[in-house]
């Protein structure tokens, strides 16, 4: 049974049938899925959710599918880690890391959105799935398409490093490198999406795709014992995730699953690509596009589709936005790894680096609960750490050399008899 009612324009409110549409014909505003919350309230309770399998589909009534999902059965319900060590380092009483670095199957939160997008695309009768991506989205589309036997196309700028596409080609996706400027590549992808009857997950399937991100927020609320955090820090690329986390909290409040305790939503970007943060700081509603220049490639979107709405979420929740330099990103990645044993991708460094800044600025109250969102795995962006980690010490295979090394490091260990 589906509780998805229609698609609705976020700007003018015009409603559309649940088809492969993404912009309002009238005003070009983005379309969003709306649900029959009254009916959901009658059938869904916290107890029912708790009895279900630990994956993102435990919230299926709030996802935009007419039937059961047809791919990604194991996606989601990633750990919410109580970060005592990192909390101590930052002076926070109650810190959590929501860790999608271990999301299945491609180690980023994109598996949430892609499994919804592909399942919906199949319901709508599509045979080919596609996306334009240089990283996590490409990996996820290729893997999930392979898992359900669909053909997939991934479009990239032609000069992207080969190592970046290994994790996509391995799944059998057709990867097309397009020559031209970033803008030209963007325009061609939009044209292909318009001309061919394919499911472009982040274009014509976008309203459904984006809804998958809500599960990240639902899980946080449930894992906190059906409570909302007082502060949450979210990385922003196109800005969709932060708006959907906010939507997820609002839906849980509407359904009576959690109390409205006033969560402040904070956005994080890299200084080398911070169009949304710039708008927040200037108090402007206008998102001015920028040319990205940062090691946080997964957040490098110069003209974010949901920029305006993300800034609104931060403003209305009483949150704020900050950005961090490449140096600060690396230092935060190391801090997270060394204190909590979590190796996040560069975007995770952005989020933690920004959290640190917000605490220093007094914008986050140290006595309140704080959730830091980690959305991807560090193994995917290892090159960012080149030259920033200590080298291993090399010794000859003699015990005496090892003992000299221990001594040189100023250490002393108990020796077994």
């Amino acid at each position, binding site marked *: 049974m589906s509780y998805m009612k229609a698609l609705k324009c976020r*700007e003018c409110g015009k409603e559309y049938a649940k088809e492969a549409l*993404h*912009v309002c014909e*009238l*005003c*070009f*505003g983005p379309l969003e899925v709306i649900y029959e919350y009254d009916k959901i309230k009658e059938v869904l309770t916290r107890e029912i959710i708790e009895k279900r399998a630990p994956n993102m589909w435990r919230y299926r009534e709030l996802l935009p599918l007419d039937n059961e999902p047809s791919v990604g059965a194991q996606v989601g319900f990633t750990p919410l880690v109580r970060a005592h060590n990192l909390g101590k380092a930052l002076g926070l009483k109650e810190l959590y890391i929501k860790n999608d670095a271990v999301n299945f199957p491609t180690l980023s939160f994109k598996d949430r959105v892609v499994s919804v997008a592909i399942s919906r695309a199949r319901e709508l009768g599509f045979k080919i799935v596609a*996306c*334009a*991506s*240089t*990283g*996590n*989205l490409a990996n996820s589309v290729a893997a999930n398409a392979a898992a359900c036997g669909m053909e997939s196309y991934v*479009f*990239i*700028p032609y000069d992207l490093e080969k190592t970046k596409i290994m994790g996509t080609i391995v799944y059998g996706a057709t990867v097309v490198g397009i020559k031209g400027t*970033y*803008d030209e*590549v*963007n*325009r061609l*992808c*939009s*044209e292909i*999406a318009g001309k061919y009857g394919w499911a*472009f997950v*982040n*274009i014509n399937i*976008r309203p459904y795709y984006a809804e998958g991100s809500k599960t990240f927020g639902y899980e946080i609320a449930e894992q906190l014992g059906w409570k909302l955090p007082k502060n949450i820090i979210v990385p922003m*690329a*196109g800005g969709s995730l932060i708006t959907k986390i906010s939507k997820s909290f609002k839906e849980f409040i509407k359904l009576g699953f959690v109390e409205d305790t006033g969560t402040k939503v904070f956005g994080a970007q890299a200084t080398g690509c911070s169009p949304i943060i710039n708008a927040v700081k200037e108090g402007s509603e*206008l998102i*001015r*596009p920028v040319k990205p220049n940062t090691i946080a490639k*997964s957040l490098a*979107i*110069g*003209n*974010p*589709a949901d920029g305006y709405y993300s800034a609104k979420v931060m403003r209305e929740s009483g949150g704020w936005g900050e950005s961090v330099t490449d140096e600060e990103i690396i230092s935060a990645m190391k801090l997270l790894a060394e204190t909590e044993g979590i190796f996040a991708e560069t975007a995770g460094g952005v989020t933690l680096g920004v959290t640190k800044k917000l605490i220093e600025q007094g914008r986050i109250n140290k006595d309140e609960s704080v959730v830091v969102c980690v959305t991807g795995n560090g193994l995917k962006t290892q090159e960012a750490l080149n030259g920033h980690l200590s080298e291993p010490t090399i010794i000859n295979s003699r015990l005496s050399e090892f003992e000299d090394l221990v001594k040189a490091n100023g250490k002393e260990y108990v020796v077994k008899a």
Partner: protein
Amino acid sequence: MKKRVYLTYPKEQVKEPLLYHVAQLFKVVTNIRQASVSDKIGLVALELEGEPEAIENAIKYFIEKGVKVEPIELDIIE
């Protein structure tokens, strides 16, 4: 054919009647759906209607004038 684009005018072009010129120079119908203009920047959501070649030429003209032309979906490459 129809094509939907976002135009971002740089500061220097904000006061120029480029849409008028485009309609005069090429056989395209320009249909503004949303716009936001200040003295620093101009943003226009535009539908262009005409033959594919005329639309292509109109887009080239905008780019030559320093206007950023993007699909209505903005940045698609994630």
